[in-house]
């Protein structure tokens, strides 16, 4: 994957490192300032529910605007054109699922984790264990995607070409991330997200406006230059440059579209954000703010992506270290020289750092709150020990993330994220919708939909061309794929809905009507919510 460095096109490492270190210093200071010395569980997981809608909205967009969005999507648009644009559209529309169906009801029902909601009216132990399993698997995949972006970026940013050197830097980055989570908990992580999301939005908007200005404020002009500078020519503007080869890839495209739109509002670290605001009204307002941020960001990314093709050229991007993922940094260097490249790389790095911190916190909360406090200790764990377990889990997960980052390298991060989204939509979405809106839904149905979706999705990913059998697969030496699609969403998402339905219908244990009443009243009105 890593080819020779495009000569001289990567700026001054001193500037890059300087800007990045400044970001780290500022955020570490913030995390240190906002952290309390002995946090309660609510402080640690949900920042005491003390953020307002605007703050959480920006942080929410920060949680989702990962390296996948910034580097992956701009790269996908730069190289594949229109087919990369699908990602942006899916990720904007997806917030409506969170706004209309899930966000407010989740805020009212749960306290810290997705498991809180899923297990509310079900048998606690099996459902919480299932929810935690799903959270850990989804988070792991998502984290791999983020860390895969880190490797290529380091090569570009610091001129570190040796694998050993890159590994050392990933370790350093991982250590900073673990510090955020350990010391800052949700409050610190949220502030890091707010700082980072603001930087990212500013950066993309300014570059976007600058590019438009360069082409006489005509988007059409940018497209024209992009088409001239791409080996696919005019086809880069049309659908099908990436997924248009045959009937299977076309179906794959639809499957991807489905995962993109249903996946976001099922991601544990995104859902957990809803607990940082005090009530449903603020939860609603945060999604609206987040939608604005998303629209602005992805409009900017559309311009940045095609702009990169127009000014840098698809071939140069593909030949650079980091491949597709390096479109945005290369464009920054072209238009703003070393300083802008430094800023863009630092922002991209900050993004990876902040998102991985959010993921680590979600996984740690799920393990400590669902598995330790409710499954192992059967619901009577001392809150202090729960926070201790959460911190310990964060360290373990941090180490896993570092190892993952060293191993995973070179894949398009947006593509890896789409697999995590398929998993999230398969395991969580059906379960959440059923438990919130379907009275009869019961424990068996819950377990079937979580495990049915999760297992089918995992199996289909393992036997898909994404893992083996094609030149771009992760395993190249053996071919054991039999499932034709790279994205399993179109099969596993409906399957999880079906499993949930069948499990409920065939179960001999009916749903508990008293609990259902309590949950529904609480979900819709917030009655019974303890702050």
């Amino acid at each position, binding site marked *: 994957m890593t080819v020779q460095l495009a000569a001289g096109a990567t700026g001054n490492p001193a500037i890059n490192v300087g800007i990045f270190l400044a970001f780290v210093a500022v955020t570490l200071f913030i995390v240190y300032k906002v952290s309390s010395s002995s946090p309660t569980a609510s402080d640690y997981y949900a920042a005491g529910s003390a953020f307002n809608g605007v703050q959480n909205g920006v942080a929410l967009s920060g949680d989702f605007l990962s390296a996948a969005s910034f580097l992956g999507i701009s790269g996908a648009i730069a190289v594949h054109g229109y087919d990369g644009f699908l990602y942006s559209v899916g990720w904007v529309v997806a917030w409506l699922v969170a706004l209309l169906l899930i966000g407010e009801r989740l805020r009212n029902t749960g306290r810290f984790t997705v498991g809180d909601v899923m297990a509310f009216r079900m048998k606690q132990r099996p459902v919480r264990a299932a929810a935690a399993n799903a959270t850990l698997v989804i988070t792991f995949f998502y984290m791999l995607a983020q860390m895969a972006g880190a490797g290529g970026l380091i090569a570009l940013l610091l001129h570190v070409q040796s694998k050993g050197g890159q590994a050392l830097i990933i370790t350093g980055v991982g250590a900073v991330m673990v510090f955020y989570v350990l010391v800052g908990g949700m409050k610190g992580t949220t502030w890091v997200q707010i700082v980072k999301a603001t930087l990212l939005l500013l950066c993309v908007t300014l570059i976007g406006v600058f590019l438009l200005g360069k082409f006489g404020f005509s988007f059409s002009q940018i497209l024209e230059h992009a088409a001239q500078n791409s080996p696919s020519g005019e086809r880069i*503007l*049309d659908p099908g440059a990436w997924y248009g080869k045959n009937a299977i890839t076309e179906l794959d495209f639809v499957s991807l579209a489905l995962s993109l739109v249903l996946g976001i509002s099922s991601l544990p670290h995104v859902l957990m954000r809803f607990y940082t605001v005090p009530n449903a009204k603020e939860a609603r307002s945060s999604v609206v703010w987040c939608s604005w941020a998303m629209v602005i960001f992805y409009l900017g990314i559309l311009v940045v992506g095609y702009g990169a093709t127009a000014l840098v050229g698809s071939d140069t991007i593909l030949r650079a270290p980091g491949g597709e993922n390096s479109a945005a940094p290369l464009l920054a260097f072209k238009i703003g020289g070393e300083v802008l490249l430094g800023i863009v790389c630092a922002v991209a790095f900050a993004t990876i750092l902040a998102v991985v911190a959010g993921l680590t916190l979600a996984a740690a909360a799920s393990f400590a709150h669902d598995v330790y406090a409710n499954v192992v200790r059967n619901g009577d764990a001392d809150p202090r020990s729960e926070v201790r377990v959460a911190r310990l889990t964060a360290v373990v997960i941090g180490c896993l993330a570092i190892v993952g980052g060293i191993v995973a390298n070179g894949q398009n991060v947006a593509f890896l994220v789409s697999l995590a989204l398929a998993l999230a939509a398969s395991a969580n979405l059906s379960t959440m919708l059923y438990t919130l809106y379907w009275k009869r839904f019961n424990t068996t149905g819950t377990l079937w939909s979580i495990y049915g979706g999760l297992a089918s999705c995992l199996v289909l990913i393992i036997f898909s061309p994404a893992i083996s059998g094609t030149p771009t697969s992760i395993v190249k030496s053996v071919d054991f794929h039999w499932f034709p699609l790279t994205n399993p969403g179109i099969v596993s998402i409906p399957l999880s809905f079906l499993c949930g339905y069948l499990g409920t219908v065939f179960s001999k244990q009916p749903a508990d009507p008293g609990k259902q009443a309590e949950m529904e009243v609480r979900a*819709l009105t917030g*009655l019974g919510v303890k702050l």
Partner: protein
Amino acid sequence: MTRKSRSPVSSSAERFATGAPTEPGMSLVEDSTHPTHIDRADPSAIQQSPEFVLLRRRLRLFVFPVSLAFFCWYMAFAVLSAYDRGFMKHKVTGEINMGTLFGLLQFVTTLVIALSYRRFADKKLDPQVDIIKELAGAGKE
């Protein structure tokens, strides 16, 4: 705002207050992190009250059709991009083709739906939630 549906407060408040907290459905949650705080009112009674039924109906009548609509609208974009590329390739103005325009329109509809839901929730849902809270004796937060 929409108080016409509201039944006399006194009778409703009594109705909620009669629910004994020791009823089977109301047993304390096994999970210690979820101490239930609906003591004075029985959720089953609230759930069956006309005020709550109205709230649920309003919510569902907005949320379900709109969700279905934006989902179909989005999938139409995706399916057309995959299967009717001739149509999506069609240039509308300059280099901007049907597909790109379609995609940008999705951005617009997303914002429109988000803003109209917020308006709807502020005007139609929140006041109704306040009524129910008042009846259940919880008052405003």
